[in-house]
């Protein structure tokens, strides 16, 4: 199996601040990787660079073998993004939002089938004719993720997908994300330890723009001699200070 994402010394600088400092990472196709870190760790900036929303200041990155700097249009056809803030068209219904996104990525004759499938798999049936602005936070997030996958991306980026959700809505969304794992490579940013632990094949611990550690939970536990991701994280963070 090939690599879905490869980055080499990827850097992003904003004037005097370095948001991402030399990120080198490989993600296999079909893998779910969690970028874990506190606010300002560089998780969102990494996602922005990999989805061509912001240009790297240095280094190199490829999505499915396509260079993000050389062919951003090619990359944009392969990725789906669910941004940190819920980004739906508020006055459109759930169905209209999904039809809109389908229209951007896929031919018209596939719209009906693809939208019906997304509504069914995300359990949005009873809300399909409801305006997005009237949905609860949890269902808005579901819609946002459904909009991100409707173009059938090879790589899906979920930026803090469960931020601000209650525990039940979060668990429900985890199940939806789990179900997507078999179909695409997923990069998920989060600062919830249990989320990374529950969903990720591998975890990337970031701090101040740099990668502190990468590995499966077992590998990270062995590396630090701690049990559970929270203790692993604290151990790595303390080692840095």
């Amino acid at each position, binding site marked *: 199996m090939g690599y879905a994402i490869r980055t080499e010394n990827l850097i992003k600088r904003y004037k005097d601040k370095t948001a991402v400092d030399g990120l080198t990472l490989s993600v296999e196709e079909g893998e779910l990787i969690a970028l874990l870190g506190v606010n300002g760790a560089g998780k969102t900036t990494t996602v922005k660079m990999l989805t061509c929303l912001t*240009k790297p200041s240095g280094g190199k990155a490829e999505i499915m073998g396509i260079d993000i700097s050389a062919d951003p249009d090619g990359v944009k056809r392969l990725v789906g993004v669910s*941004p940190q*803030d819920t980004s*739906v068209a508020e006055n*459109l219904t759930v169905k209209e939002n999904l039809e809109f996104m389908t229209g951007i990525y896929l031919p*018209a004759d596939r719209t009906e089938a693809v939208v019906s499938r997304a509504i069914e798999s995300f359990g949005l049936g009873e809300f399909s004719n409801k305006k997005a602005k009237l949905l609860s936070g949890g269902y808005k997030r579901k819609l946002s993720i459904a909009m991100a996958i409707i173009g059938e991306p090879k790589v899906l980026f979920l930026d803090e997908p469960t931020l601000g959700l209650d525990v039940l809505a979060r668990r429900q969304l985890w199940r939806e994300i789990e179900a997507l794992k078999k179909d695409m490579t997923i990069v998920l940013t989060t600062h919830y330890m249990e989320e990374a632990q529950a969903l990720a094949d591998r975890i990337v611990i970031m701090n101040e723009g740099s990668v502190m550690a990468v590995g499966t939970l077992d590998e990270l536990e062995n590396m630090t001699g701690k049990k559970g991701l929270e203790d692993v994280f604290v151990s790595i963070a303390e080692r840095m200070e």
Partner: protein
Amino acid sequence: MRRTMVFAKRNLIEVFRDPLSWIFCIAFPIVMLIIMSIVNSTIPKEAGNTMFRIDNLAGGIAVFGQMFIMLFTAIAVAKDRSGAFLTRLYSSPMKSSDFVWGYILPMLLTAVIQVCISLTASVVISLISDYSLSIAGLLLTAAAVIPSALMFSAIGFLFGTFFNEKAAPGICSIIISLGSMLGGIWFDVEGVGGIMLKIGRCMPFLYATRVARSAISLDLGVKEFLIPLGVVVIAAAVLTVLASIVFKSRMHADQR
């Protein structure tokens, strides 16, 4: 093209589902048409003031209504820019031209509907006030004001790209006030002359009003119709190109 139309459809739905667009784009110009017609009926004939007579008023109101199209274009663009919705779309295969025409086309359609409604209301008022309007003139007006609709949409797009959700409506309100005064919608700028006329001639609004009024009265001379129409067409083209360039550079700036 498909992406442009898909985005245009989304924006059209957003406009039609916002009650404020109905109030400001459709109801308010008609209310002004009715109020000014009542004002006209109270002006003695000896005064010789024909500014609010329905043939003059209909053209003025058609342009006045389009100024609210500018406001709604600015709000739509600024609102999308302030949220994460455009972020999602920037990461999609949409090009800057899809965004530009996706915002402008639904506003043009709204403007055409708005003009048709306000001209129909003008016909009703003309029948009540016993002043006949030429149907050919009305049809010509509906077509002749399309360039000014594009011009106002482009101005709105420009403001929505430059300013945030709070500032853009304020700037547009200033333009609506200035444009309706210097555009000669509420008083005869050419009769007033002086500095008002000089400033008015430097802006496209006066020409837009003149196109609409000349079309209604089928006064299609070079000075009365063709030159003002040419000025509006050039202004619309320049502003649309400028708006496209500014949006594209903003899009790239956001990606730095």
